[in-house]
């Protein structure tokens, strides 16, 4: 009897689902995918390959934009050292006038104040190699009035005209701009909020501003309070190790370094996460002496410098999950790293037989670059169980400031592999 009954439910489905009839109509899009597959692509999943493609494209875009904005062609004498932060702020405010003066100016002339802040933002981001100059500029902006939506547009709009038009003669500026700029009181939280929103909205176009905003504490607090209130944060601990390629100019002269460390990831929403931790890294590199700057005057310049640096890398990254299905997760991340140079050993290579300068130079614990390195990464993670996962992460580290004693533009690219332990997870596994 029981057998019969079960047989009958089987029959119901067997008959009912035997022929889809009109329920599975032909779709041309499916054939297009089929044709692409037949044209020599591997028979990968359409969805998966699309995600991979989109991920790769996004990472490339970030990379290119980051490069354009953060790696200016000319190297100037701007001191990139950490200790120079304060003088930089003073210099800024000195140059463009104290807030009160700006206020007065903006009252008399709509453009002068906004233009000067636009100038400062633009000029500094263009000329300087140091992130600290950038963050000092952001601080300067805080005292001189928050940049609002309109200011950002102003900065962009005015740029081409700046050379031909003296700043204090142009009057045709929107009234909104003046208002935003003249509200200097620290209570302008709303405006700060606005500026934050706009900054993140145009983050793709202006990564410099985005990273600056990221670094300003009050703004950062406003970044994700709503989502974290609704979402129980999750924590995961990862051990990562990676080989990477270090290079100063292009990737022609490169050396392979090693990294190992612990990372803590906090999921602040379903898609967004924040990662920090500590990575102990050995970064050897070789560069032409031209890329190396030193206070010491060599009697005859060395041809090249080989360096071996032991670095403690403290990253602070945000990640966005673009794909999560069947235990496979794919996410894109960016953020800033602080380098603490634990040991720097430089060897100077001379071409002549009788070298006229020192052969080596060793430093310990002297240089640090707080939030001086931009991180870009993609992460693929595979769940082994509900608690453990393994991951692969191609990454790229782009300096915003000169690294080490030689203030070199030390880039690193590598692939990290790691294991992750989910301390608590928001969603119960199926």
């Amino acid at each position, binding site marked *: 009897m029981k057998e019969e*009954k*079960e047989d*009958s*439910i*089987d*029959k*119901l*489905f*067997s*008959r*009912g*689902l*035997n*022929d*889809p*009839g009109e*329920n*599975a*109509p*032909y*779709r041309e899009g*499916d*054939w297009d*995918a*089929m*044709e692409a*597959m*037949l044209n020599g692509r591997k*028979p990968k*999943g*359409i*969805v998966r390959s699309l995600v991979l493609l989109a991920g790769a494209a996004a990472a490339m875009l970030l990379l290119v934009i980051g490069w354009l904005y953060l790696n200016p062609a000319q190297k100037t004498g701007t001191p990139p050292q950490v200790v120079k932060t304060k003088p930089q702020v003073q210099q800024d405010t000195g140059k463009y006038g104290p807030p009160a003066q700006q206020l007065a100016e903006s009252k008399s002339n709509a453009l002068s104040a906004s233009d000067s802040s636009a100038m400062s933002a633009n000029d500094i981001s263009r000329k300087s190699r140091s992130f600290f100059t950038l963050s000092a500029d952001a601080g300067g902006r805080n005292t001189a009035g928050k940049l609002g939506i309109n200011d950002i547009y102003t900065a962009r709009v005015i740029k081409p005209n700046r050379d031909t038009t003296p700043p204090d003669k142009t009057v045709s500026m929107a009234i909104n701009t003046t208002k935003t700029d003249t509200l200097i009181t620290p209570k302008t939280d709303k405006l700060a909020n606005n500026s934050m929103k706009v900054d993140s909205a145009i983050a793709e176009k202006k990564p410099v501003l985005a990273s600056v905003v990221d670094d300003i504490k009050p703004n950062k607090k406003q970044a994700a309070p709503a989502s974290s209130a609704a979402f129980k944060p999750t924590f995961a601990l990862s051990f990562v190790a990676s080989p990477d390629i270090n290079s100063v100019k292009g990737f022609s002269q490169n050396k392979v370094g090693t990294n190992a460390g612990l990372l803590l990831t906090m999921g602040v929403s379903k898609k967004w996460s924040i990662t920090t931790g500590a990575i102990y890294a050995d970064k050897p590199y070789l560069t032409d002496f031209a890329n190396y700057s030193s206070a010491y005057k060599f009697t005859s310049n060395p041809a090249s410098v080989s360096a071996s640096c032991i670095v403690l890398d403290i990253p602070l990254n945000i990640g966005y999950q673009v794909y999560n299905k*069947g*235990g496979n997760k794919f996410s894109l991340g960016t953020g800033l790293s602080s380098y603490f140079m634990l040991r720097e050993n430089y060897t100077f290579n001379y071409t002549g037989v009788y070298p006229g300068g020192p052969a080596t130079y060793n430093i310990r614990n002297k240089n640090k670059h707080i939030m001086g390195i931009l991180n870009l990464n993609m992460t693929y993670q595979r*769940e082994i*169980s*509900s608690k453990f996962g393994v991951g692969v992460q191609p990454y790229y580290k782009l300096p915003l400031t000169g690294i080490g004693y030689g203030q070199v533009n030390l880039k690193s690219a590598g692939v990290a592999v790691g294991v992750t332990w989910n301390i608590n997870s928001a969603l119960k*596994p*199926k």
Partner: protein
Amino acid sequence: MGEEELYRLISGCLKDDRLSQKLLYKAFYGFAMGICLRYAANRYEASEIMNQGFYKVFKNLNKYDITKPFKAWLGRIMVNTSIDYYRSNLKIAYTEELDKAEHINDTEYADQNLNYNDLLEMITKLPRAYRTIFNLFAIEGYTHEEIGDMLNISTGTSKSNLHKAREKLKVMIAENNRIPGTVNKQSNDNIISITQQSNPNLSVSFVNNVTKQ
């Protein structure tokens, strides 16, 4: 499609003729999709599996024995591709506990008047492991031993999963009978029109019958 036409298309496909490939694809699209939809979680996944299956068909067409029915050969490839897909997305899939099944009246299920979409929706709602085993046993007609080999599980697991799949389907059918035309609908909210013209100051509240009781 006549046999002659089919052979013409197959011989075209063997020469890698793109038009023949497209015509063959189009001719068996519905049949193949019907199989894949049963195994997949959604339509996108189904077309992904189906295309992988057709790729195998086109690449291995020289192995097709022309004396045997083409449809059966194609169908077997689609089922195998679905199983490959299932294996590659295998999670810890056998852990799901059986829901507390309410008592279900003995019904003659074969007489149920359920259309294709209702049945497909039910089968799609099953967990992937149950769905795969139910498909292989009930629709494709494989034995538990064969299924065990295919999915690399024991015969016992196959049997118990089939049983759980049937139980779940029975619950779904029972629910469907209670509210005809809807497989799964739970709505207790009263909907109040907010476009009242007579009294503009009317305050709008949403009353939930369940909580009010």
